[in-house]
């Protein structure tokens, strides 16, 4: 192919504004209005890419989203990979290069894969690269390098995106003739309209036709306003002007509707610039899908060579950009369509040699004007068998059809082969809308029109668009859409030609691969897709899908049209994540929750951790020059020896009140609530119906009909949902229960440690703090440091501990008072890391570590919190089932190691007798449990851990082994395991009697 730029012509280009660009380092010239593809064709570049698997040279084949290979790497003005050249508007100084080839596009070593194509059919990786097994990481490395298209650019390009919401009654997708007629019908019916078009200007396929193409006015309804014989473009521009003048109509250009969702939601991506996009979230009642049709290619040997193009694309580049795609053309397709193209080409100076028409429908043969040459020859009894030429099209070989003498053949030298294999309606969006498939027509609210509904002539499309829109608005029944299926002609599967006859050019799937799939039993289009990767390329199988499905039907002996392509799913075209993020970049997409004291934590140098439910909490407070372990040890020593303070505000807090509140809680919690006196609390387990822990916390009785329930910070939202579910549904017979989520209404500061009582006394309080007056698990209300507070004496760290609940507006001042008063006592602010160490020392469970959704309360040593001598409660039936069962349970135990760093959390526990490398299998090498939490304990000077171990309580005092991962390189992860010995002990390491807790 030697495409060339015509001296004049091209409706989309402005020849007075030339642009310079470069491809693969070579400079070229084009015009404003060109796409990169039309500019490359105008400059005579035939090969622009190498194919995915076999690295065959590929050129530009189509004019829009259906080009499977025209993906280039953009180097300037921005850096981006996998940009589709046919949809990239050219700008001054644009630089692009080819992907997926090395060392260069012209000489690609990857082409050796093509020579090995017999060894690399579809699914080859299911059959090869499996042996020896040790070599798999090496194979994986190679395959990963060979796979994929393009290399990601360095980050740094600024992507600008925004989001717009809009509501309208009717959405019309597509601005071809059908779309324009539909939009006109909507506007004339006085409905609000959103009209979405992918092109720069309205027109769709009309813009690929010669300018003077006229309309047969008398075939159309009078209201459309088409005058007899007037050029279609004139009617279109009049109609667009009328619609634009209507205030209720919104017209979007350069916008692609890429997804349709239930209840009238549509997503549209508007391209405003090279890296600037706007996402439209539309809410509509009805959709007219005038999205056109995709042109199908033909199947013959070497049908992927540069120089083989779709007939519509040849016309597209000719009319819009003034680019002729060759000098000596052969056209293949139905006579009526091809003679129009032959007219245009010869008027442009392209020599049309032959028109190969082997359709069964005889078409009109019109006189063709030639620029000083001979008429093209009409060939009816031969079909295209193969393309000759190594790097590009040089000649085409025609052979007789089977019914004829098979020996007849002809070779024609040419540089452009324009093929037309039929139209496939672009109904992917119809498949997005749930409840239907593309094959069975329209849903209630989405209807295809125009070429998408199977119509082919301009008059049919106009009438279809008008009638479908009117029908949708009036609510009349859907029109029956016509679909045409042509029988597929292909070379015999077993022939050598089949290996070079491409069905999907994006994934290099050939006719042979499809035959292979059928032979191996992958007979449905879905299985075919997954086995051969047909339709999985960036073009989403726009042409390959229908072609593959009809070829599959043909191979299986089914009637043509009986198999449909696989279902399309959103997005229809690639959408950048940045476009979806819209105007919520960075922290805006996920705002952090803060407490009134967060500013102090940050100022004190705390390392802030993500802590679940969008909270950020201090992990530890390092002093200058201190390591993380040193800081944690210092904080722990303060809590055990002096006094510590931490910010407990993120915890969930709920007030449950009403005369039925106690009955409600009796049914919800496993503990006996009736025995709870006013001013007292107890540890509460929130169980799920299967007896596992949803969350844990404390239930406090404030008054006869008022309770206070706390939960963990990370689960507060889930607990609220659960409480409301129980109140409004499960136990809705209890009428008088009120639940208020007061998590944000209370800030909580916990003062803990042996000197905590002393500290609170020094702040000044009217609450009696002596042990007899204020026992463990009690709650008192009063004033602390002049601020109204509800004080609860619970403990998450295992010593004397007071939780000061105050109003958020008082929290920061109180915190500062506590810090100041504690200075003389040796106070330290405590972060979540130190809290973790302290609770492991005490054997307190943590939701997510020990309570993993599988261990039940008995396993965790919390059976005492379950009272069976009361009525039914959530989870009771499952607890009874577990207790009656005989199988070994994973039980909470402690592990001690004599020396060395802590065990790994998640390490597996195995028997002491097992040694790695031995041939033990089965029972001896089975995992007995795993480590749930592991820390270095400053109080004990040793590493300790908590673990869930099978029959753990029976193994106290025994030795077990825990796995340790041996680190490997960055590519390989871990390179093996070794084992470390540990002793099983009771799961409490500090103050087992709880003396300090109750002091």
């Amino acid at each position: 192919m030697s495409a060339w730029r015509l001296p004049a012509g091209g409706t989309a280009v402005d020849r007075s504004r030339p642009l310079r660009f470069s491809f693969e380092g070579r400079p070229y010239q084009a015009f404003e209005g060109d796409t990169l593809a039309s500019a490359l064709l105008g400059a005579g570049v035939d090969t622009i890419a190498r194919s995915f698997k076999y690295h065959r040279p590929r050129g530009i084949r189509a004019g829009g989203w259906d080009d499977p290979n025209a993906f280039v790497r953009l180097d300037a003005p921005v850096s981006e990979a996998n940009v589709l050249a046919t949809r990239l508007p050219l700008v001054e100084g644009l630089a692009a290069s080819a992907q997926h080839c090395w060392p260069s596009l012209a000489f690609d070593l990857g082409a050796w894969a093509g020579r090995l194509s017999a060894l690399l059919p579809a699914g080859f990786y299911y059959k090869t690269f499996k042996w020896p097994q040790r070599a798999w990481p090496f194979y994986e490395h190679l395959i990963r390098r060979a796979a994929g298209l393009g290399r990601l650019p360095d980050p740094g390009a600024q992507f600008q995106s925004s989001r717009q919401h809009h509501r309208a009654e009717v959405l019309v997708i597509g601005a071809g003739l059908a779309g324009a007629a539909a939009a006109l019908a909507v506007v004339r019916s006085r409905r609000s309209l959103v009209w979405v078009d992918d092109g720069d200007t309205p027109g769709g396929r009309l813009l690929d036709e010669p300018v003077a193409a006229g309309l047969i006015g008398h075939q159309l309804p009078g209201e459309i306003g088409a005058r007899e014989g007037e050029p279609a473009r004139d009617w279109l521009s009049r109609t667009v002007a009328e619609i634009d003048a209507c205030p209720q109509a919104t017209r979007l250009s350069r916008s692609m509707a890429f997804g349709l969702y239930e209840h009238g939601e549509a997503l549209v991506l508007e391209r405003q610039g090279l890296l600037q996009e706007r996402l439209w979230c539309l809410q509509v009642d009805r959709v007219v899908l005038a999205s056109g049709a995709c042109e199908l290619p033909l199947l013959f040997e070497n049908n992927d060579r540069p120089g083989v193009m779709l007939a519509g694309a040849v016309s597209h580049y000719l009319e819009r950009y003034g680019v002729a795609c060759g000098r000596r053309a052969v056209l293949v397709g139905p006579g009526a369509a091809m003679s129009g193209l032959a007219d245009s080409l010869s008027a442009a100076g392209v020599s049309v040699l032959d028109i190969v028409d082997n359709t069964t429908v005889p078409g009109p043969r019109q006189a063709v004007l030639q620029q000083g040459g001979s008429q093209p020859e009409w060939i009816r009894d031969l079909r295209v068998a193969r393309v000759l030429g190594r790097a590009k099209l040089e000649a085409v070989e025609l052979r007789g059809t089977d019914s004829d003498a098979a020996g007849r053949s002809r070779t024609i030298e040419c540089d452009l082969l324009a093929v037309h294999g039929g139209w496939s309606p672009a109904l992917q969006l119809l498949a997005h809308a749930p409840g239907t498939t593309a094959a069975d027509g329209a849903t209630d609210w989405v209807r295809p029109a125009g070429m998408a509904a199977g119509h082919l002539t301009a008059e049919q499309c106009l009438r279809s668009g008008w009638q479908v829109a009117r029908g949708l608005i009036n609510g009349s029944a859907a029109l029956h859409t016509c679909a045409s299926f042509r029988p597929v002609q292909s070379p015999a599967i077993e022939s050598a030609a089949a290996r070079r006859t491409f069905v999907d050019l994006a994934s290099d799937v050939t006719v042979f691969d499809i035959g292979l799939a059928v032979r191996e039993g992958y007979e449905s289009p879905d299985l075919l897709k997954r086995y051969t990767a047909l339709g999985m390329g960036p073009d989403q199988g726009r042409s390959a899908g229908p072609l593959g499905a009809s070829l599959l039907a043909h191979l299986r002996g089914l009637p043509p049209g009986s198999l449909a392509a696989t279902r399309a799913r959103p997005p229809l075209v690639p959408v950048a994540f940045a476009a979806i993020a819209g105007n919520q970049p960075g922290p805006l997409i996920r705002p952090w929750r803060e407490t009134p004291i967060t500013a102090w934590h940050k100022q004190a140098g705390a390392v802030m951790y993500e802590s679940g439910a969008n909270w950020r909490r201090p992990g530890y407070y390092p002093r200058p020059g201190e390591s993380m372990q040193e800081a944690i040890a210092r904080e722990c020593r303060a809590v055990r020896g002096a006094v510590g303070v931490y910010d407990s505000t993120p915890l969930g807090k709920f007030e449950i009140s009403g005369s039925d509140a106690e009955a409600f809680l009796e049914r919800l919690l496993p503990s006996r609530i009736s025995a709870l006196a006013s001013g007292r609390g107890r540890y509460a387990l929130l169980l799920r119906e299967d007896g596992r822990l949803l969350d844990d916390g404390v239930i406090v009785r404030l008054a006869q009909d008022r309770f206070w329930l706390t939960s963990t910070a990370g689960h507060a939202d889930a607990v609220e949902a659960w409480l409301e579910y129980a109140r409004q549904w499960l136990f809705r017979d209890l009428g008088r229960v009120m639940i208020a989520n007061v998590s944000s209404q209370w800030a909580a500061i916990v003062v803990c440690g042996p000197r905590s009582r002393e500290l609170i006394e020094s702040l000044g309080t009217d609450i009696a703090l002596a042990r007899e007056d204020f026992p463990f698990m009690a709650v008192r209300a009063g004033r602390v440091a002049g601020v109204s507070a509800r004080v609860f004496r619970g403990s998450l760290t295992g010593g004397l501990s007071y939780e000061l609940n105050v109003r958020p507006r008082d929290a920061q001042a109180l915190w500062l008072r506590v810090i100041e008063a504690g200075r003389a006592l040796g106070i330290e602010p405590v972060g979540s890391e130190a809290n973790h160490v302290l609770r492991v020392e005490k054997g307190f469970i943590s939701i997510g570590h020990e309570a993993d959704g599988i261990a039940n309360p008995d396993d965790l040593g919390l059976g005492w919190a379950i009272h069976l001598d009361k009525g039914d409660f959530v989870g009771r039936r499952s607890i009874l089932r577990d207790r009656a069962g005989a199988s070994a349970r994973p039980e909470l135990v402690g592990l001690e190691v004599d020396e060395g760093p802590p065990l790994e959390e998640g390490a597996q526990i195995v028997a002491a007798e097992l040694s790695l490398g031995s041939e033990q299998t089965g029972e001896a090498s089975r995992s007995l449990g795993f480590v749930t939490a592991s820390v270095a304990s400053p109080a004990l000077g040793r590493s300790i851990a908590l673990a869930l171990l099978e029959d753990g309580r029976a193994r106290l005092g025994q030795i077990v082994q825990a796995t340790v991962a041996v680190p490997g390189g960055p590519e390989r992860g871990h390179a093996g395991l070794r084992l470390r010995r540990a002793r099983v002990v009771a799961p409490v390491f500090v103050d087992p009697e709880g003396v300090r807790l109750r002091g």
Partner: protein
Amino acid sequence: MRINCPWCGERAETEFRSAGAALDRPSAPTELDGTQWADHIYGRDNQPGLVRELWWHWAGCRQWLLIDRDSVSHRIDRVDRVQP
């Protein structure tokens, strides 16, 4: 998907959370045998077509709603309040 909340009007699906099939809690769980109980906790019919579900309008009125939804087309037939 849009859900027509009886209190708040038509709202986007993202304001709601689904709790699955609207099953009542058995009145006497201890009288069920192990298989029946496991079926109540874990077993769900997964039929295409109309299902009766519980949804929670967490970003609005925070009320639980009973919704009849077609599990194939997501068409919503009825949205009811939960009556005691």
